[in-house]
């Protein structure tokens, strides 16, 4: 067995002060639709062994240092040659010393959908069937293309201190495009989402909600020039607060010990994350890798650290940073491991009370992509609503302009909460004073 062979070879290397190996096995099914027809169907698999080795050293001034070398080995690769290469690299670089995680209890975080595990392609057949069925009920919008992916990944992590852990997770993704037409005008909405379970995709409600957005785009007018209350809800709120799960947000960046060590985060433990007065609800955040079926959850992270729910910010003040073992050692913080999902406590406001008119509601961004160091953003609005005098008037275009942290310093959160893949928390927020750069 290749993994055992690698472990034995690593144990035999006297020059190494430590090592870890991660065996990754992935199998995936992919389906692509144009209209109702299948454009492509793919089955794919991948297997590799990620090896990391550590070497201690002493510089000419007698200071202890440490070098690391990483290499990925494919099945049937040359083990001795790979370790030689990694060890050589570890001998070249020098960093402050840090430790490897020690064995610890690994929580049993639910990560696997048995339906996907049994038959990824079969699971996708179900997803695409449900998408098409939901779309067929629409009389004024149509599904023009879709993609779906189902993946099973098994990871075993072993290190020289005795960590030996394994986890199997599933993920299922879908994206679809809905279009509507009125005269010569054609509009579309695009939605993509990933969950660990097929049942969490909520396919019919996603199609229905996006069909409504598509219809509203047909009626959308020019963006208003607005400064005042702005409401965000559900998926859009999750993206605003927690980022896109493929590109982490401001909280994950500024709350990262790695960025703190690199002097990129100005946050300090015990200090407020806000630069001015807080006029909204107090802000508390957990970095939570243990959210059941959360798409950024795991039982253990890339270093082998067990999943945790870490209080990052309490009542506006930094409690700690999300720290890998390396940066925890460097900054003298407790090791928390990877960030995971963003969890916020339930707010104190009924949703209805957050919808006091007038306000602007943002429904779709082109891409909410703030500057993760400063928090400044200027994001094009693909669909929004100006709600006043009992009328909900859709608009498109214009930009939401502001600063992420200033926005959070003046926000009210709903009592109602929801799970949205990488976010667990209130489903509605009313930001007190944001600007829409309109016409």
């Amino acid at each position, binding site marked *: 067995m290749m993994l055992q062979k690698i472990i034995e070879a690593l144990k035999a290397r006297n020059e190494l002060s430590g090592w870890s190996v991660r065996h990754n096995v992935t199998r995936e099914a992919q389906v692509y639709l144009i209209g109702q027809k299948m454009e492509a169907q793919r089955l794919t698999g991948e297997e590799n062994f990620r090896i990391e080795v550590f070497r201690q050293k002493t510089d000419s001034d007698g200071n202890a240092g440490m070098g690391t070398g990483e290499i990925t080995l494919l099945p049937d690769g040359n083990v001795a040659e790979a370790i030689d290469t990694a060890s050589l690299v570890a001998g070249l670089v020098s960093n402050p010393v840090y430790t490897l995680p020690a064995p610890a209890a690994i929580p049993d975080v639910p990560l696997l959908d048995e339906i996907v595990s049994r038959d990824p392609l079969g699971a996708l057949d179900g997803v695409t069937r449900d998408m098409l069925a939901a779309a067929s009920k629409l009389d004024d919008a149509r599904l023009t*293309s879709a993609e779906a992916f189902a993946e099973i990944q098994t990871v075993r992590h072993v290190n020289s201190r005795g960590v030996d852990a394994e986890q199997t997770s599933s993920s299922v993704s879908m994206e679809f495009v809905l279009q509507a037409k009125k005269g010569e005008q054609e509009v579309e909405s695009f939605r993509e989402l990933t969950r660990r379970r097929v049942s969490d995709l909520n396919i019919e409600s996603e199609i229905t909600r996006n069909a409504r957005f598509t219809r509203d785009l047909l009626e959308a007018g020019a963006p208003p020039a607005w400064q005042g209350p702005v409401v965000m809800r559900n998926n859009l709120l999750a993206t605003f607060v927690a980022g896109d799960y493929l590109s982490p947000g401001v909280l994950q960046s500024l709350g990262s010990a790695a960025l703190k060590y690199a002097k990129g985060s100005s946050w300090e433990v015990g200090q407020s994350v806000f630069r001015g007065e807080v006029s909204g609800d107090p802000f508390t955040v957990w970095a939570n890798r243990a959210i059941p079926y959360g798409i950024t959850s795991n039982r253990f992270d890339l270093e082998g650290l067990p999943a945790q729910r870490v209080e990052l910010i309490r009542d506006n003040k930094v409690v700690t940073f999300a720290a890998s073992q390396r940066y925890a050692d460097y900054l003298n913080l407790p090791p928390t491991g990877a960030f995971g999902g963003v969890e916020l406590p339930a707010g104190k406001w009924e949703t209805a009370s957050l919808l006091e008119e007038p306000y602007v509601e943002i429904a779709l961004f082109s891409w909410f992509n703030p500057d993760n160091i400063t928090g400044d953003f200027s994001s094009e609005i693909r669909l929004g609503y100006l709600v006043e005098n009992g009328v909900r008037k859709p608009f498109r275009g214009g930009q939401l302009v502001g600063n992420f942290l200033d926005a959070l310093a003046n926000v009210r959160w709903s009592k109602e909460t929801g799970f949205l893949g990488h976010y667990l928390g209130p489903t509605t927020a009313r930001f007190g004073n944001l600007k829409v750069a309109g016409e």
Partner: protein
Amino acid sequence: MTDLKLPSAMNSLRGSLADFVAQGQKRAPYFSVLLSDRHSLEILVNNREERVTERPPHAGTVLSAFDGATMRERAIAGFDRDKVNAAMQELVSGVSFAKYAPPASPSRRGDFVTPMQSDPSALSVQEKLDRVREMQHFAKGLDPRIVNCQMVYRESNEYSVFANQNTDVAQRVLRVVLYMFVFVAGEDGQVRYNWQSKGATGGWEQSQFSEEEMRKVIDGAVALLSAERIEPGEYQIITAPGVSGVIAHESFGHGVETDMFLKERAKAAHFIDKVVGSPLVNIYDDPSLPGAYGSFFFDDEGMTTGPTQIVENGLFRRGITDFYSAAALGIPRSSNGRRQDYSRKAYARMSNTFFGAGISSLDDMLAQVDHGIYLDKWSSGMEDPKGWGIQVTCHYGHEIKGGKITERVFAPIGISGYVPDVLGSVTAVSNQFKLDPGGCGKGHKELVAVSSGGPHLLMKARLG
């Protein structure tokens, strides 16, 4: 014969590809095999730590069977002949392929390798690490306000072999890219940052920042300490080449990927040979551009490369294609069928996308602006192929007053507007030309190496 130095397992399987194609084509009307091995080395040095990382490689075989309606594929990790053979049997057995005659294609044969003066694989990691350390050490000492300076060098080796009935081609494409990041701290403790990247297909000789380039990155970061938010509105703007490139990329790059035509997602499909910009606007995609970061010799579907003129003197001419969309639309192929790696599907994807250069000097363009904004640096963009909205965010821009760039800085700045309106407002195009290296996704996935750029453009747009 060019020595590609193909990985041994890949080289050994290459000899069997003609047999696989012949066998596959007994069942499937069209059958092809792609062998793909992509691996890269990254060296990072900053004030506080250094890393040398061999990034996880992606190496595998893609078997494709097509009957004019559905593309069926098996992607197998590695290059084991028995595993590939088993996957081929599984792929073509039990499938009822429709009758289909693939479009005739010329015979394509050859081995290609990126021209370079100094092959990085011939240098030791120590030599590369020393160069990066030296650059980082020099840069961090250029300004006392720097709290961290990070230098990153990355070299990516892409080996591909493609075979179908008429094609037997192999390539080694080497991309090198340097990144410099600078964090500076203001008196109030706030952190600002700036970066620069420089990339090419080429060798080790490409991996060097000049002192002038380093100082420009640092000056940009320092200027951001006093940056203001811009008053939203319509402005006369001059875009730096990188910003011009992102506009080309998002509007007539993503917007003309012809798989989007098939999905009825591209507004451009209704604008062939129609006006989409001022007569000064020319836009190209060219994977054959020597030395450019997004270049290659043939795409992941075996099509050898050449330039595509997308917009000619303000008229939209044609899109960029992959095999499937060209076949389904009955249009000529361009060499843009690309995969993130062997585990992903091929789509119509960009390579090097840019505005063609004009004849104006930057000084002449500035002289035409009484009050406007010079957009120095882009940070992100997003496509809107159906609505043709522009969403480009700039890291910062400078005020232009009385024909001169002033010290006043705004950040960040969002550009928005309707693509034909914005491109229609172009009144001058500079004679300078530059490409920025980058990564491009399809939506939020399918990352491939690209470059984008062009000249400076003088036009009008809404900023916010």
